Each structure stands twice: as C-alpha cells, then as structure tokens.
C-alpha cells in the first residue's frame, strides 16, 4: 500500500474546539489518504476523542473545516457522512437487537434497501468473524465480540473513511492482535484513523503516527514498518569502521565503545546476510548482534517534553 493513491479522502484544517475556557483542540490539521492508517497517539485528555467527535459530525468545531470524500461536513453533512464509518469509545449497540438485525439497521441508516442491507450484514459478519454469534442479542455478547461488532457497524456500508476511537480498549492480548489485523485489512480500500494511548499499538498498526498533546499534533512520524532501522553489533576483534561502512545497506557507523558499533541501516537493502558472512570470513569474533529500536516511546516522550524515566 505504499503507492500514493489520489487525494486525501479526509482532510481537516485548523480545527478548534473549546469547552468553556479550556481549549480541548487548538488548531489541529490532518489529512489521510486511502490505504493509510493514521494513529492519533496521545495521553488521556490530549483531545483525541474531541477531535474524532468533530471529524464524525458529533461535535461542531468552533473553527476550521472538515472535508470527507470531497464534501464539507458542515455544508453537506449527509453526503460527507455517507462516506464515513465511526466507532465511538463505547460501541453504540442496541441490546435488544441481534447481531444481524443490528448490522442491517446500520446499513439501512446509510440508505441501503432491505435486500442490500441483508447482504451487507452477512458479508460484514463474515469479515469481522461474527458468524457464530450472528443470531445472539448484542446485549449478551462478550466485550470482545461487542468491540468487533462496533467495528463491523463502522464498515458495513463500505465507507471510504473509517474512524476508530480506542478500538482495542478492554480486549485481551489475543483479541488485540486480531483486531489490529482487521484494522490493517480495512485500510486496503479506505483511509483509517485510529486513536490510542498505547504506543506499541500505534507503532504496529499505523502507517503514520501523529502525537497529540494539549489539543494539537505536536509530532508526526512514520509508523514502525517492521524493518529494523538500527543494528548494534559487538565484536571481540573489531574490523575498521570503514570496512563496515562499505557493506551495502549500511548508511553510517557509530562506535559507542571499543568493539561496539551502532549501524544505521538504509531502507532499500538489507545488510544482515553480508554482515554475517563478512564477520565469519574475516573472523571479527562477533559476540552480539541486536536490533536497536528507535522506539516510538522516545519520540513520544520527547514530543511531550518529558525525558525518558520521568514518566510515571
């Protein structure tokens, strides 16, 4: 999904929202393209939920504007909302309806006819792994299934923009994994915005991470794509720094202690294999090799102006 496809499908400019004298969101702008997952990361109270409420038409911004699929949310809310799927903090379920009835209702709210709504509900059940509970009342579902159904509700009408507010809260680790996998899957044909206060979650799922504090985005960074960016090696008989720098895929070499190198890797080629072969052939006495994660945590704490170790 690295190809850049067309214009952003959701675009917000200079959003502002006050509660009394408190500025919950102060001049926030963002835009997300199809195929992208933007994680809004921030401590509780940073303004994530307020931002998402504005993006989904539940709160009117005091300033700024929002475009969804080319429609201004304030001027043509119905066209804009047609392209929108939203999971609030608490899944908005009606306990008296069964899972299929509920999904059909959601599809019909979005203008689907009876027949289409039935097809959409069945397809969404399958996509979100809800088939085995399809005829249960939503009020009787476990927390994990309720959360899944919350996501199902947001995607039943195949929206171009999907907004998920803390989708993994209250789930167990297995459920978190499957939910994150589902979210990645959703991004195949939609722009996804996920809010979270969990760093590793943001790192694993997002293609971009926006760190929020005091109602604005203070830092934006690429999500962890899974590739190691820095490598730390320890050698008993260390080679020259230049020797290491010549290996394809190594951008720069830093010596932190005698025999300890931190290698900056370039994104386009993987030096692991050549590094290991050279180490054996030239007998460097390699004792350790480990990935150094430039952790999102460091970035996060730096962006919030807290030094690592200070945070409780």
């Amino acid at each position, binding site marked *: 999904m690295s190809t850049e496809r067309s214009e952003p499908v959701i675009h917000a400019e200079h959003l502002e*929202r006050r*509660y009394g004298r408190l500025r919950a969101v102060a001049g926030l702008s963002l835009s997300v393209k199809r195929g992208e997952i933007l994680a809004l990361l921030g401590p509780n109270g940073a303004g994530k939920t*307020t931002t998402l*409420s504005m993006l*989904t*038409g*539940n*709160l*009117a911004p005091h300033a700024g504007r929002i475009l969804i699929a080319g429609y201004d949310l304030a001027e043509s*809310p*119905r*066209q804009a*909302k*047609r392209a*929108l799927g*939203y999971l*609030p*903090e*608490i*899944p*908005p*379920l*009606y*306990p*008296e*309806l069964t899972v299929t*009835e509920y999904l059909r*209702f*959601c599809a*019909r*709210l*979005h*203008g689907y006819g009876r027949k289409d709504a039935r097809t959409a509900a069945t397809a969404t059940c399958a996509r979100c792994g809800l088939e085995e509970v399809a005829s249960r009342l939503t009020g009787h579902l476990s927390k994990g299934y309720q959360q899944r159904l919350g996501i199902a*509700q947001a995607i039943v009408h195949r929206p171009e923009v999907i907004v998920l507010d803390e989708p993994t809260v209250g789930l167990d680790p297995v459920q978190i994994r499957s939910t994150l996998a589902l979210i990645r899957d959703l991004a195949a044909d939609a722009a996804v915005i996920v809010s979270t206060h969990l760093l590793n979650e943001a790192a694993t799922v997002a293609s971009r991470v926006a760190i929020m504090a005091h109602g604005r985005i203070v830092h934006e960074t690429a999500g962890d794509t899974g590739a190691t960016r820095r490598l730390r090696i320890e050698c008993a008989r260390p080679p020259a720094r230049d020797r290491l720098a010549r290996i394809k895929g190594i951008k720069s070499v830093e010596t932190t202690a005698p025999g300890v190198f931190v290698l900056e890797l370039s994104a386009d080629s993987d030096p692991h294999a050549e590094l290991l072969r050279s180490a054996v052939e030239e007998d460097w006495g390699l004792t350790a090799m480990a990935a150094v994660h430039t952790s999102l945590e460091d970035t996060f704490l730096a962006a919030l102006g807290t030094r690592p170790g200070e945070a409780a």
Partner: protein
Amino acid sequence: MRAVLVIAGRDLRALFRSPLAWLLLAGASFVTAWVFLWFVQGFMATVPHLPPGEHNTGVTDLVVSPTFIWVALVLVVLTPLLAMRLLAEERRSGTLRLLRSAPVSATAIVLGKFLALLSMLWLIVAIAAAMPLSLELGTTLDLGRLGAGVLALALLAAAFGAISLFISSLTRQPLLAAFASFGAILLLWIINLAASGATISGFGWLAFQTHLDALLRGLVDTQDVAYFLILTLLFLGLSVWRLDAERLEG
C-alpha cells in the same frame, strides 16, 4: 423519509421486545375496559328513568365521552413512560453517536422516534375506541361524536408524545425524563384552574382540558384542532433544535 421509517421501525421493535410496552398496553386496556363497563352499568341503571325515546342519544353522553376522558388520563400517565427512553437512553448508551454520524438529519431522528411513539399511542387509542364502538351492536351511537372523540384522543396523544419526546431529548436519565414529562403534561392539563371563572382566558386557552372538552362534545373547531397541532409541531421543532444545539455545546 426512509431513514425516518428505519429509525421508527427499530424503536418499535425495541419497545415491543421489552416487557414495559406489553405491561403498559395491558394496563391501559384493563383500565379502559374497567371504566367503560362501569359507565355502561351506570347507563343501564339510568335508562329506566329516562324519558321514553331518549336513551339512544344518551349513550354517547353517558358512556362514550366519560370513557374517553379516562383514556386521556391514561395517556397522561403512559406517554411519559413510553417516551422516556426514546432519546435519553440513546444518549446514555452512546447510540446517539451512531445516528449522528450516519447520513441522517436531526429532523429524521426526531420524526422517526415520534412516529414510533405515536404508533404505540394510537394503538392504545384504537383499542379504547373499539370498546364504545361495540355498543353499536345493541344501540345507536352518535358516530360523528364518537369520531370527534377519537380525533381528540389522537391529537392529544400526538401533543403528549411531542412534549415527552422533547423532554427525553434534554437528559440522559430516562426516569428523570418520565417524571419531568409527567409534570409538564399535568401542568398543561390543570393550568386553566389558575383562571377559574373566566371562560376564555390565556390560561384557559393553554390548557388541554378546554380543547379536549370541546372536541368530546362533538364540536370539531379549527381552533381546538390547531391548538393540538401547534403544540405538537412546537415540541417536535424544539427537539430538533435541541439535538442540533447539542453538537455546538458538547
């Protein structure tokens, strides 16, 4: 328009899946039937003392109208209970966000809820109207007057419903909404007592009773019909305004 029906359909389904609706429906039918039979019995006792040839006209006066007054009182109690969850519960459980982020206007939400409530209330009115109508089997009814009475109850139900819906839109506590609606309806019911003596006064015009009595006497006056319609539209409008304003206040 379709959104209105979709929302109304879901609300009715929810209503009929809770024991509350059935309980209230049963209660309403029981009270109406009890009162109706009581008035019929009273009428039977009175008939021998009526001048000859008069008893066919008397039945509407002595049975139908008093029964309908009681149905109106039943509606005073039931409407707040049936309406309390409509918007308050949606707000409390967070499902209002689902409706708000769907391509549905606040007007459609309010009308959908109102339609669901009104179907239920009109069902109660229909059941109540069927009882006096059964007298047609044994006697002659003044059908015009009966019709005016049914119209009165239908309009009254709409006005009660709109008031209760609006109050339900103000809070997230269904029970609080029920009590407040009950209070509001009761106030409008008895407000004419403040102007005792004067026949047509501002308070008198405001009161439900003034207009209900006129219609139950068989007088279908535009003014009385307009009173109920204005009240209904006013509170529906206020509900829409309230839902929209909420987005601004947060």
